[in-house]
Structures are given as C-alpha cells and as structure tokens.
C-alpha cells in the first residue's frame, strides 16, 4: 500500500516536472506575486492596494454607522476570499514540493536505500514553515482575521491590512530599508529615551504621586506625563505643581530637545547616505521602461559629446560611469546615469542587454577598458551593436576580434578629415554642413515600408527632383531575415524596383525630407485600411 502510494507520488512528481502547462501557470503566479520586472505585477499590486483601502474604509465607516449590506457582504466574502487565495498562492509558489520528492527519489535510487516518506514530508514542511513564519506571511495571515465579525477586538487587526500594503509599494519598503540602515543609532536613542522617561516618571511619581498633584493617580499617569514632556509634545493635561516636579520637567525638557534633534539628524543622514542608492533605483526604474537603449560607457570628452548629441536627436540613453565626480557631472547635465562598472557582466545583465539595449558605446579614454567592455557586452549578447573608441592601432585589431561593430579612432578621423579638406574644401564644407545639420540641408534615410506607395514601385516612378530631393543611394536588402545585410546602390537607375525593407538615402532640406517621409507614412495607412 505504502509502496504503491510512493510510486504514484513519484510518478506524479515527474509528471509535474515535465508538464509545461503546470510550469507555465506556476511561473505566471510567481511573476505576478514576486517578480518586480513582470509588467503585470504593477496592475496586480494596484488591485490589491484598492482592495485593502476599500476594506479599511468599510471598517472605519462601520464604526459609527451601518454600511450597505452589499458592502458588508463584499468585505466579508470577496475581500477575505481574495486574501485567502493570495495567501495560498504565495504558499504554493514559495517552493516546489515535487522537486523535493524527485530529489529524494533519485537519492534513494542512487544509494539503493528505501524512499523515506517522513523525510520528504519533513523537508516540505520545513520549507513551507519557513515561509509561513516570515514577517510578510504573518502579516498576510493576520490581515485575513478581521473578517470574523463576532470578535470586535479582531477589528484592530484591520491595521495589518494597511501593513500589507507595504508589499505592494516599493517606496514604502524603501523608507523602512533606510531606517533599517540606522538600526544601531535608533536603538541607542530609543534606549536612552526609555531610560530618561523611566527616571522622570519615577521621580514625578515620588514627588507628586502622593496626592500633591490631583492629576497623577498612578505610575502610568506619571509615565504618560514623562513621555509627553520628553517628546516636547506637552499636552498640558498633567502639569507638575511642586518645585521638585518642575525641576524634573525642566531637566527632561532639555534632554527631550536633544533627543528629538538627534532623531531628526539620524533620519536625515540616513536619507543622505542612501540618496545615491535611491537615485540609482529611480534611474533603473526609468530605464527599464525604455526600449532601444543606448549605453554610453564612460563620461569623458567623447562620452559627454555623444550623450549630448544622442539626447538632442531624441534617442534614449543611459550613461554608465564609475567615477563619482563624472557621475555628478552627468546628473547635472540632466542625463540618466548608472554608477557602475561596465566591464562587469552583472551591470550589463541588470540592464537586460539583449532585450532592451540597441547599442553599447565604449567611450572611455582607456583602450583596454574599452576592450573589456566590448568583450563583456559581446559575450552576453550576439546582436547588440557595439561602437568602441580606441587610440592605439594595435588595439583596433583586438577590438574587432572582441566583437566591436564600429571602431572610432579620433586621431584617424582627424587625419581623414584633414585629407578631405585639403583635397576638396568645397565638398568638405558641404559634407560638414550636411553632417552637423547646422544648415537645413541634410541627408536622411527613408525606409520603404510594407504597403507604402514605394513598395514595388520603380525608382523612376517618383519624381525626386520635383520634390526637391536628391536620391543618393538605395540600400537594397540582401536577405529578408537579417536587418543589417544591405548592399549599397549609388545613383540608382530609374528601372530599379524598390521592395519593403529597402532604405532610400535622400538629400534635401529638412522640410522636403519631412514631407517625403509623411507621404510614405500616409500611403501605408491608406493601403492597410483598404485591404
């Protein structure tokens, strides 16, 4: 009987391990409950916050007047059910039971010893118990309790529902994290305050508790007075009447002021210390929303210029810099900065290199560092575009090997530009004007969109000259799969047929180019609505 049970248990565990449906569902709930990067978690969190607030509101209103029956019903059944389901789901996803069974089974097979059911159960129970006894789980459990209306005292636990909100709000968690970093100072201060309160309350009780002060009847009254005074709140419902009592209050008022300012300074300094960290989290949150991110690694001369230009052209970018003074500079320039080392794989992994990053720009002044960043990025992602700056010619080869797509050699560029200028000054100026876009003439690229009037048309079909454009070249697609594989056709003859995915490189004034782009864009919309 027992053996049969074990057999079914193990078979079932293996079935679960290999069932994609089960894994998917579990992964979904895990992400929904615990994974901050999961896009739908946000909505779940908002939903839970709404549920909590509504249930707290119902309970508060219920104190003095009766709420509508259906609200009561909602609070009693729906909210509680949601809480219970959430609690059970969390319990379910916190660990994998079938894995424990499989592990034990494989171990017993390997060592040829009998399968121990009790060991498996103990193991599973231990894992689940560890979750149940964790603070958030306890709060969750207590938050379910107020639904039991027969015991009015249980309603106090409604506060735990408010605590539960901590789970769904990052900033609240952050606040407590910050306070936690100053644990020792806060403990010291609290002990000190407790000590002074105790002394003061005993003293006032001794001096005035014997009937001198009609308001002090017990040690509790004395302690209440001491705390109200020491925190500089001073309600005034109890006031010392004797000289001794007044002396005591004078002393504790002074200590109180000291303690309160100490407390304030602790909290302020904690925030100050954590400020860079808070900023980093904020930057990460912002950046994580973006796609096609450009990483500018290094905020030196080139990094600064590149960042400025990319920002101007509306690209999303993130500066990665490890030097604090340069980080500050980038922040002042209004950029998103991550204070990290781009040569570490952790930094790039955190940014989801493959999914969100369009290009990595290695712009540090050190060639070796640029090589490291290139290797780091390329080893993590095959398709990301890497642009590396390098000064030394011998490093250039290594950078190519490491996987850089484009090499930028400032000294080389100076030579090339110089050569072009000496040979063809007029052409040089024209090119400079087009490139820097200071004058309104510029070169731009227009992609042939699927279904636009250019798709399937011949070059000669469109009168570029009449539209005040010059068609310099067409980048024809080589294969349909890869985006990068284009070949260039200069001054294309009129009978070349354009296909979707080809890129036209046109020269003209900004207005003409914008107009042309608009025409292409517009024709796409038209065709799709027709078909």
């Amino acid at each position, binding site marked *: 009987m027992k053996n049969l049970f074990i057999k079914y248990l193990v078979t079932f565990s293996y079935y679960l391990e290999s069932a994609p449906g089960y894994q998917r569902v579990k992964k979904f709930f895990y992400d929904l409950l615990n994974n901050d990067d999961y896009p739908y978690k946000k909505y779940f969190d908002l939903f839970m916050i709404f549920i909590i607030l509504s249930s707290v509101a119902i309970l508060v209103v219920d104190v003095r007047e009766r709420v509508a029956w259906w609200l009561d019903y909602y609070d009693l059944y729906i909210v509680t059910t949601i809480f219970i389901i959430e609690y059970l789901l969390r319990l379910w996803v916190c660990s994998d039971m079938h894995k424990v069974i499989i592990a034990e089974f494989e171990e017993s097979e390997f060592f040829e010893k009998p399968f121990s059911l009790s060991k498996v159960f103990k193991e599973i129970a231990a894992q689940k118990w560890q979750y149940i006894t964790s603070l958030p789980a306890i709060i969750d459990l207590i938050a379910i309790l107020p639904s039991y209306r027969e015991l009015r005292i249980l309603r106090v636990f409604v506060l735990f529902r408010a605590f539960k909100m901590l789970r769904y709000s990052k900033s609240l968690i952050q606040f407590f994290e910050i306070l936690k970093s100053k644990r020792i100072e806060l403990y010291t201060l609290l002990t000190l305050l407790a000590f002074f309160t105790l002394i003061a309350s005993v003293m006032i009780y001794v001096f005035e508790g014997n009937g001198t002060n009609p308001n002090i009847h017990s040690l509790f009254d004395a302690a209440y007075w001491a705390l109200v005074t020491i925190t500089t709140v001073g309600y005034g419902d109890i006031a010392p009447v004797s000289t001794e009592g007044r002396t005591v209050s004078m002393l504790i008022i002074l200590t109180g002021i000291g303690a309160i300012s100490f407390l304030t300074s602790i909290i302020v300094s904690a925030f100050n210390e954590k400020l860079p960290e808070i900023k980093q989290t904020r930057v990460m949150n912002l950046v994580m929303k973006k796609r096609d991110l*450009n990483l500018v690694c290094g905020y030196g*001369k*080139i990094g*600064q*210029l*590149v960042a400025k*230009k*990319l920002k101007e052209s509306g*690209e999303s970018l993130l500066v990665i810099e490890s030097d604090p003074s340069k980080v500050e500079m980038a922040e002042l320039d209004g950029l998103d900065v991550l204070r990290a080392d781009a040569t570490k794989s952790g930094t790039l992994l955190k940014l989801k290199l493959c999914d969100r990053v*369009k*290009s990595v720009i290695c712009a540090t002044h050190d060639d070796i560092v640029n090589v490291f960043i290139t290797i780091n990025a390329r080893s993590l992602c095959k398709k990301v*575009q890497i*642009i590396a*700056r390098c*000064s030394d*010619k011998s490093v250039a080869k290594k950078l190519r090997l490491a996987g850089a797509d*484009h090499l*930028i*050699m*400032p*000294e*080389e*560029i*100076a*030579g*090339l*530009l*110089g*050569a072009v*200028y*000496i*040979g*063809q*000054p*007029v*052409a040089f*100026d*024209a*090119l400079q*004007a087009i490139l820097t876009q200071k004058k309104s*003439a510029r*070169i*731009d*690229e227009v992609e042939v969109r699927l279904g636009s009037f250019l798709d399937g048309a011949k070059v000669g079909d469109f009168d570029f000259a009449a539209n*005040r*454009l*010059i068609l*310099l*070249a067409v*980048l024809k697609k080589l294969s349909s799969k890869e985006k990068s594989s*284009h070949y*260039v056709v*200069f*001054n294309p003859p009129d009978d070349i047929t354009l296909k979707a995915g080809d*890129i036209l*490189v046109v*020269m*003209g*004034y900004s207005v*003409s180019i914008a107009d042309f782009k608009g025409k292409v864009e517009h024709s796409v919309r038209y065709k799709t609505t027709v078909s």
Partner: protein
Amino acid sequence: MFDTKRQSREIILFGYGKLGERIYGTLSTTFSKITVVDTNEEHVETAKKDGCARVELVDFKDDTELESLNLEEKILFCAMDEMSMNIFLVLSFKSSVENTTIISVSTSAENTRKLKFIGADKVIDIYESSANRIADIITRPAVTRVLDEIVYVDNGISIEEIEIPPNSFLEGKHVHEIDFKKYGLILIGISDKELGEDFIFVSRGIDHKFDAGDILVLLGESEALRRFYQKLMEAA
C-alpha cells in the same frame, strides 16, 4: 582628383607625437609632398624611422627658424599633442606669413573657439568629430554607411569638386537643362564665386545658371567623373 593645383600643394605637418604620427599615416596615403616638423628630437627620429621623406627639427619659438621653412603657399597642418602649442603656432603663422591654408587639430570646444578666433582656416575637433560619428552610426546608420562609402572606402565612388572652365558646354545653361543622371553623376551643389563663397545645395530648388569659375560638387563613380571632366575640358 581633378583640381591638380591643390593636389600638388605642399603640406607641412607640425608635430609628430601621438596625434601627428596617425595624421601623417592617413595623409600620406593621398598626398606625396609632406614635410614633418617637430621640436622634439625623439619625435623627429621616429618620423625618420617611419620613412618620412622630409623631416626637420625646428624650434617653434624662434621665428627665423620657422621662416626658413618657406611656409608661403603651403598647407600648414598643426597637430601638436599640446593644444597650447597649436594655438601658439597658428598665431606665429598668422603674424609672419600670408597666402597659406592653416589647419589645426583641437581637443575641445574651448580650443576650437580660440583657434578660430586667431584665424585658423579649418579647425578639426577630434573628439567632436568622433562623437558626431558615433551619434550618426546610431541615429542614421544608412546615411553613415553611404557617406563612408563615398568618403573613406576606396570603391570607386567619390565626391569631387570640379571647377567649370571658361567656354565650356555648361556655360549659360541652367541646372534643370543638364541631365546629370545621363552622365551617371549626382550634382549635390554649386559654389558660386559671384554670390560669395556660399554653397548652394541643388535640393534647395534654385535654378542656378552655370558660369565659368563655379565649382560643382559631384558624386559618382571615378570613371564617370573623369569622363564628365574630359567633356567639360574638350568643349573649352
């Protein structure tokens, strides 16, 4: 290369340090008459070792030594590693010689401003140019690729400027009358001496009338360019 006048001009490269060495490397592929000048003996030695034909050791602070280089009518390329030296050099050229083209390298917007103020004809900010290039690769990859093929890659496609000789077949014609596509060329713009040195992009839509002395900026295959140039000269 059709403007042989410029081609044959002599270049004097000042500085053979980190920067100068690389610049010499790229310049020497297109130009033959390059003189390297430096104050540092070590640099002069490396220049000789690298095979520079003409190398001079000159103290830049001594004006008579500079003048002995015969700077007139030459292209002066300042590529010292220290920017202050470049500024100083441009200043001494401006004060002593005329009829030269002064090109200087710069490493910051600050220096570029100073060099231009002193009177350098062209200032190349190496970092600015690099940054421009990086930004272009990201924002306009196709454009960058096409320009690269034109300017840097040796594949027969180039951008050339051709001065219209007197009495050529273009004389008195308007832009719309000439079908440059027939010649396999693209006319990008014209620099008209009469209208000042301003460069007119064809795409602006002004129907310009060709005159002798106008400089055409044409894009096309070297062969097509050469044929067009010959035709232009024949008619003249």
